[in-house]
C-alpha cells in the first residue's frame, strides 16, 4: 500500500512542473482576464460608507439623510483624482448628467467656508432616485455591463436589458464579420484541402513526402513572414497582378489587398495545413481496397466517392474544419496587415481595448464571447463525432 502511494507521489511530482506551468501561464491569466470582464470594484473602493448604508435602500423612495451624509463623507475622503474620474465616467455612462452633477457636488464639498448640510441643497437632482440607482448598481463588485456591451446590449435606467443605440453598436457587426470570414476561410480550406489530402494519401514514397512537406513548410515559417509575403504578392504592383497583366488576362490591376479578398486568400493559405493534416490522417486509415471494391460492385467513380470515400473521411473534414474555424476567429495579424478597415476582426477590437484604451473589462468580455463560441462549436463537434458511424 505504501509502495503504491509513494509511486503515486512520485508521479505527481513529475507532473508538478506541467501543472504549475499551466496554472501560472494559462489558468490564472485566463481566470483573471475573465474576472476583469465581470468585476468592477472601483466605485465600491471609493464609497465604502455609502455601500454600507445603501444595502437597505428599496431603490424607490427618495434618498434618506444618512445616505446623503455617507456619500458626502466618502466624496470628501477621496484623494485619488484618477479613481474619481473613473467612477464619474462609469456613473455618467449609466446615467447621463452625472458628470456635471458630480463636478458641481465635489466643488461644493471642497468649499471649506460654507459646508453644505446635505446633497439636495447642492443640487436638486440628488432628490431623484435614478441617480442613486446608478450609484447602487455601480457599487456592486460584479457587473454584466462589459458582457452585455460585448454583444451591443446594455441596461436602461430601469435595469432591463435593451439594445445599445446604433452609434454604439459596433461589436455585433464585427462579431458577425469575424464568424463570416472564419466560415469562408473554413469553406475554402475544405475545398482546397480535401482534394489535396486525397491526392497525398493516394501517393507513395517521395511524392507523398513532397506533398506533405509543401503543406508543412509554411507551418514552420513565422506567421508574420508568411503574411508579409502575401503583402508582396497581392499588392497592385505585386507578382500576381504583374503576371496576370503580362499574360493579358486583365488590363487594370485587381484589388487584392486591403480588402476582404486578400484577407481570405492569406488566411486560407496560412490555415490550410490544419485542414489537410486531419483529413490526411483519416484518409490513410481507410483501407486501400474499398474504392476498387466499390468499382467492382458496379459503382462509377463519382458514386463510389460519394457513397464510400466521402462518408468515411467526413470525420477528418469535420475536425479539420473545426481547427481552421477556431483558429480563424482568433486571427489578428493577417487582417490587420492585409485587410482594410472593414475587415478587422474581433481580435483587433480586443487588442484595441487591451493595449489601446486599457479597458481590460471589455477586452475580457469580448474574449469570453469568443471562448464561449469556441466551446459551443467544440461541444457540437464532440456530439457529432461520438455518433459517428463505422467506429467501434
Amino acid at each position, binding site marked *: 500500500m505504501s509502495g503504491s502511494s509513494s509511486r503515486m507521489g512520485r508521479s505527481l511530482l513529475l507532473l508538478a512542473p506541467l501543472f504549475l506551468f499551466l496554472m501560472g501561464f494559462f489558468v490564472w491569466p485566463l481566470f483573471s482576464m475573465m474576472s476583469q470582464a465581470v468585476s468592477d470594484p472601483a466605485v465600491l473602493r471609493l464609497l465604502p460608507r455609502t455601500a454600507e448604508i445603501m444595502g437597505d435602500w428599496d431603490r424607490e423612495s427618495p434618498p434618506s439623510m444618512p445616505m446623503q451624509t455617507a456619500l458626502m463623507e466618502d466624496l470628501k475622503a477621496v484623494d485619488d483624482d484618477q479613481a474619481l474620474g473613473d467612477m464619474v465616467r462609469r456613473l455618467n455612462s449609466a446615467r447621463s448628467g452625472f458628470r456635471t452633477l458630480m463636478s458641481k457636488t465635489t466643488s461644493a464639498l471642497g468649499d471649506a467656508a460654507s459646508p453644505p448640510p446635505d446633497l439636495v441643497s447642492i443640487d436638486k437632482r440628488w432628490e431623484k432616485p435614478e441617480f442613486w440607482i446608478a450609484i447602487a448598481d455601480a457599487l456592486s463588485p460584479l457587473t454584466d455591463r462589459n458582457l452585455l456591451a460585448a454583444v451591443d446590449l446594455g441596461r436602461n435606467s430601469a435595469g432591463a436589458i435593451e439594445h445599445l443605440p446604433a452609434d454604439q453598436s459596433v461589436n455585433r457587426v464585427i462579431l458577425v464579420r469575424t464568424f463570416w470570414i472564419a466560415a469562408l476561410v473554413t469553406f475554402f480550406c475544405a475545398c482546397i484541402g480535401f482534394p489535396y489530402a486525397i491526392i497525398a494519401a493516394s501517393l507513395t514514397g517521395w511524392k507523398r513526402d513532397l506533398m506533405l512537406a509543401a503543406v508543412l513548410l509554411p507551418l514552420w515559417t513565422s506567421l508574420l513572414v508568411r503574411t508579409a509575403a502575401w503583402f508582396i504578392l497581392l499588392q497592385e504592383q505585386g507578382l500576381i497582378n504583374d503576371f496576370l497583366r503580362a499574360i493579358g488576362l486583365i488590363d487594370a490591376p485587381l484589388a487584392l489587398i486591403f480588402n476582404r479578398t486578400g484577407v481570405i486568400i492569406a488566411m486560407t493559405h496560412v490555415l490550410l495545413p490544419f485542414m489537410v493534416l486531419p483529413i490526411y490522417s483519416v484518409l490513410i486509415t481507410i483501407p486501400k481496397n474499398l474504392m476498387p471494391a466499390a468499382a*467492382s*460492385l458496379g459503382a462509377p467513380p463519382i458514386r463510389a466517392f460519394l457513397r464510400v470515400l466521402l462518408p468515411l473521411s467526413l470525420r477528418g473534414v469535420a475536425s479539420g474544419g473545426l481547427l481552421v474555424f477556431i483558429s480563424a476567429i482568433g486571427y489578428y495579424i493577417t487582417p490587420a496587415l492585409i485587410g482594410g478597415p472593414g475587415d478587422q476582426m474581433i481580435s483587433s477590437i480586443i487588442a484595441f481595448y487591451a493595449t489601446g484604451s486599457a479597458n481590460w473589462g471589455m477586452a475580457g468580455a469580448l474574449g469570453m464571447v469568443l471562448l464561449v463560441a469556441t466551446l459551443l462549436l467544440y461541444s457540437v463537434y464532440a456530439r457529432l463525432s461520438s455518433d459517428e458511424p463505422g467506429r467501434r
Partner: protein
Amino acid sequence: MAEFIKFDRITKFYGPLCVVENLDLSIAKGEFVSLLGPSGSGKTTLLMMLAGFEQATSGKILLDGAAINDVPTHKRDMGVVFQSYALFPHMTVGENIAFPLQMRGIDKAETAARVKQALDMVQLSTLADRRPSQLSGGQQQRVALARALVFEPRVVLMDEPLGALDKQLREQMQLDIRELHRRLGLTIVFVTHDQSEALTMSDRVAVFNKGKIEQIGTPRQVYDEPATRFVAEFIGETNLVEGVVEAIEGREATVRLPNGAQIVSAVSDGVAAGQGVYLSIRPERIDLAEARGAARNVLETEVTDSVYQGDHLRVQLQNEAYPLIAKLGRRSREFAPGTKVFAAFSAGDCRVIAP
C-alpha cells in the same frame, strides 16, 4: 471447350519488371479455375487485369467473345472477393450487400428480397443490421461473398479470400464455396498460393511460376502428371531423382539412375532416349519391404530415420546415390534406423520430367 474468358497473349510490365509474360488462358462458362503459384508469380496481377484494376501492357482479354481491355471495372459485371474482405465499414451488413443492387438501380422491394436471399445463402440472416466491425473474420468473409454474388455477376473473382482465416474455418469455407459453385453454376476464378486449397475446390488448376503458366489441368493431372519440376515440387511433396533415359516404349520410359539401377516410369511426349531427366516419385506411393517383392521398380535402400506423424509414418531413406522419403499408411510397422529395406513402386507411380 467453350471459351467464356480468354486471355490472349497477355503481357504486363511494372516498370522494367515483367510480371506476366505472353500468357494464354481460356476458361469455360461455369468452370472453377484456380490460379496457383508462389507470391510474385503473376497470378494476382492476372486477376486484377481481369477485374479491370490493372491494364495489360499488351494482349487482349476477351469475355464472351468481346474484348474488355478498355471496359472500366464498374461496367465489367464481375464480383470480386478480396483477401481483406473490403467491406464498407460505415454500412451495415445489409447495406453492404444492397450496395451493388442500388448501383444497378434495382427498386427497393426487390433489393430487400435479394439481400435477404443472399444473407440466407451464407447463413447470416440474423446479422443484417450489424456493422462489419462487429463480425468475426469468417462472418465478414461470408458477407463479402454474399455481396459479390448478390448481383449475379457474370464471373466471380476471388483473391486469396480465405488467407486470413484459421485452418478449420478455411476448410469449412472451401467446402461452402465449392457447394455454391455447383449449386449456382458460377464461373469462378480463384487465386491462391495454397496447393491443397486449389486441389480441393477447382475444376482446373493453373500453376503459375515467374509470370508464366507451368501447367494447367485437373487437380488429378497436376498432382499425378506434373509437367515440370516446378509443378512436381510446388504441389505436394515429391522425390526427385536424376537419371538418363535409355529407351521409350509407348507411354513408358526406362531410366538409368546414377547408381546403375533401372526404373520403368510413365512419360509424356517431348522426352527422347539419351536425355538427362528427373524422376518424380510421390512419397505416399512408395512401399517398403525387407524382401525384394514382385513390383516393377525396386530400389535397395537403408532407413536413416522414421517419424510417426499420426496419420502416416514418414521414413527417410538413403542409398549410395540419392535420398528418398516414403510416407506409409498408419497401419505400417515401424522401421528402425539402419534397417536395409527395398523401396517398391509401380511404373505408373513415378513420372519422367524433362529438366
